[in-house]
C-alpha cells in the first residue's frame, strides 16, 4: 500500500495491464510523446514503444472506431479521448456502434474497448471544456460506465475494465488527478457494479460519484458538527448501477440526496432518484433531493463558475432543510 495520486494510480494500472496482456494497447491524442494531456500515460511510450502507445491525429471518430474494430479483431484497446467534450465527435462510434454491435449481431461479437476520458469543471476552461456527460452514456444500453472518485478505485476499476468484455466509458475527473490516496500495490481489482459506503450514518443518505464524493464527505463532516449523521455512498459506477446499496441505506435513513456534477435536468441523479422512489418509496420521509450543476453552460469567470457547480455548502443546506 502506497499513497499515490489518482493520475499515478491510473498510470500504474495501465503499466500492470500492459505487462500482463500483450493485447492491451493505448491510442489517443498526445498519449505518446507528450505523455498525455493530463500526463496519465506519462512514461509509457519509453517502455512499450510506438506500437502499443499510439499517438493519433485529432480525429475522435476514427480513434474510437478504430478501437471498436481492433477490439473486434481480438485486441484490448484503450482509447484516450483528451476530454469528454470531444467524445461528442465520436458519439456515432460510441452509441451507434460500440454499444449496439453485440446485440444487433445476435451475440456473435464483443467489443472489449475501454474509452478513458476526463471530464468536469473547476479550472475556468469555459463552456466547451467543462462538461460532465456521464448521463449521455448512462442512458445508452450496451455501455458500462465507470466513474471512480479515489486513486484506489481508479486503479482497481481500470484493471477490471481491461478484463471484462463489454465497452466501457471510463470517466475520470480533471480535478482529481492530483488527489492522493492509499492504493494497493500490484494486483488490485475493484469489481464492477459495487458501490462503496464511504461513511456510515443514520440521518441522511448522500449518494454521489466522482469528484462530488469529496464534496459529499466535506458536507458530512460539516453536518456532523450540526448533529446530523450522514451516510455517504460512492457509486463508483453508473452502469452497472448498484442501487441495492443505496436502497439499503435509504431504508435506514429515510432521506436521500443525490450529488453530481452533470446538469441537474436529465442527469444521472434523476435516474438514481427515480430508482430510489421505485424501490424504497415507503421508507422515504422526504422527497429525494438533487444537488447538481445549474442547467446552463459553465461560465469562465471564477466566481460564476463556482456558483454554477454543486458544492459542499449546497449539500449541507439541502440536508439541513430535510431534517
Amino acid at each position, binding site marked *: 500500500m502506497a499513497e499515490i495520486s489518482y493520475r499515478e494510480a491510473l498510470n500504474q494500472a495501465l503499466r500492470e495491464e500492459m505487462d500482463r496482456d500483450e493485447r492491451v*494497447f493505448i491510442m489517443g491524442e498526445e498519449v505518446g510523446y507528450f505523455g498525455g494531456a493530463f500526463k496519465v500515460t506519462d512514461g509509457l511510450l519509453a517502455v512499450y514503444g510506438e*506500437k502499443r502507445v499510439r499517438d*493519433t*491525429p485529432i*480525429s475522435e*471518430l*476514427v480513434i*474510437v*472506431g*478504430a*478501437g*471498436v*474494430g*481492433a*477490439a*473486434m*479483431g*481480438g*485486441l484490448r*484497446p484503450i482509447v484516450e479521448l483528451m476530454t469528454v467534450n470531444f467524445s461528442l465527435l465520436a458519439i*456515432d*462510434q460510441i452509441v*451507434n*456502434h460500440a454499444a449496439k*454491435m*453485440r*446485440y*444487433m*449481431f*445476435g*451475440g*456473435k*461479437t*464483443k467489443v*472489449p474497448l475501454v474509452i478513458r476520458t476526463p471530464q468536469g469543471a473547476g479550472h475556468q476552461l469555459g463552456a466547451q471544456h467543462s462538461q460532465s456527460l456521464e448521463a449521455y452514456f448512462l442512458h445508452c*444500453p*450496451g455501455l*458500462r460506465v465507470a466513474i471512480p472518485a479515489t486513486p484506489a478505485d481508479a486503479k482497481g476499476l481500470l484493471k477490471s475494465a481491461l478484463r*471484462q*468484455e*463489454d465497452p466501457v466509458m471510463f470517466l475520470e475527473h480533471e480535478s482529481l488527478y492530483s488527489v492522493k490516496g492509499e492504493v494497493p500495490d500490484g494486483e488490485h481489482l475493484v469489481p*464492477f457494479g459495487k458501490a462503496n459506503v464511504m461513511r456510515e450514518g443514520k440521518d441522511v443518505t448522500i449518494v454521489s460519484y466522482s469528484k462530488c464524493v469529496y464534496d459529499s464527505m466535506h458536507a458530512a463532516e460539516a453536518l456532523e458538527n450540526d448533529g446530523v449523521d450522514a451516510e455517504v455512498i460512492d457509486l463508483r459506477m453508473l452502469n452497472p448501477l448498484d442501487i441495492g446499496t443505496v436502497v439499503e441505506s435509504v431504508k435506514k435513513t429515510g432521506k436521500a440526496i443525490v450529488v453530481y456534477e452533470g446538469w441537474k435536468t436529465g442527469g444521472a441523479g434523476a435516474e438514481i432518484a427515480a430508482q430510489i422512489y421505485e424501490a424504497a418509496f415507503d421508507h422515504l420521509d422526504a422527497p429525494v433531493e438533487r444537488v447538481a450543476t445549474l442547467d446552463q453552460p459553465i461560465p469562465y469567470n471564477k466566481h460564476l463558475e463556482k456558483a454554477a457547480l454543486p458544492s459542499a455548502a449546497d449539500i449541507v443546506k439541502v440536508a439541513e432543510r430535510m431534517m
Partner: protein
Amino acid sequence: MALERDKHVAQRALLTLDEAQLLDVYRKMVTIRRFEEKAAEMYTKGKITGFCHLYAGEEAVAVGAIQALYDKDYVVSTYREHGHCIAKGAEPRAVMAELFGKETGISHGRGGSMHLFDPVLRFMGGYAIVGGGLPIAAGLGLSVMYKEEQEIVACFFGDGALPQGAFHESLNMAALWNLPVVFICENNFYGMGTLVQNAISQEHLYKFAEPYKIPGVRVDGMDVLEVYGAVTEAAARAREGDGPSLIEAVTYRFRGHSMSDPVEYRSKREERIWLERDPIKNLRKKLLTERGQDETTLKQIEAEVEDVIEDAVRFADESPEPRLEDVSKHVYVD
C-alpha cells in the same frame, strides 16, 4: 486513363481465373440477384419488414472484390449488404431467415436486413450509419498489423459516405499507419435520391485517394472481372505491407434506395441504359463467347440457384421466432 488501364486488368483477370472459379463467380452473382428478387417479393408479401435495401445491379462489385480475397480476410459492409455477405460465403438460408427476423437468422433475428454478421466467415457486419463501417475497418486493419498477421480488410461503402467525416478520418489514419485496408466505394450515382454531383465537390471519387497519398482507381463496377483485377492488385499491396487503396466501382442499383422508394428522381431512359449493362448478362455473354461455356452448364447453375433460393425462403418461413424471454439477451457479455 484509369478506365483504359482497367480494361487490361479485366483481360488479365479473365485469364487468371480458371473455369471452376469463373463458374463460381457466375453462380454467386446469380444467387445474389435471385436472392434480392425473392427478398423484394417476400417484402411485398409482408414476410420481410423494416428497411430492406436491395443490391440487384451491383453484384459485380461484391462478387468481383471478394473473389480477390482469401477466406480469412475481413469484409466490412453497409446496410445494402446482402450481396457482400453471400459473396463472403453466407448461406442464403441464414440471410433470408435474418430478413424474416427468425432465430435461425445469421444475426439471430436481432439485426435484420441491415445488420448481417458472421465472424466465422469474417463478414464483420452491415452497418446502417453512412460511413460507420470505415473506422471499424481501419481498426480491424490495425488489429491485423498489431498481431503481425497476413489478413487484409475490404471495406465497402457507397458514394454517399464520401462527404462524411468518417471517410476522411479513416483514409487519413489508414494512410498514416499503412493499414492493410482496401476501401471500395460503390458509386451508384445516388445517395438515396441525391445525385453524386449534388453532394460531392469532386465527382471523380477515386481522386479522393490523392490527398491521402494512396493509390486510387476507378473501375467499371458492372464488370466483375475488372473489379476482381483491381481488388487483386490492391489486396496484394495491402498484404505486402504497402498500405491502403481506394477503388471506385461505378455501378447502378436496379431498384430504389430501399423497398419504400418509388425511384422518381431518375429517368426511365437512364435506367434502361444501365439495365442493358447488367453485370450478370455481361459475364454470361463473356463465358459463352470468350471462355467456351455452353448454355446447358449456365442454365443448370441458374436452376440450382433457383432451388437454393426457394429452399432459403422455405427455411426462413418455417424457422422459429426468437423467444420473447430472450429479448434482452446479448446486450452485455458479462
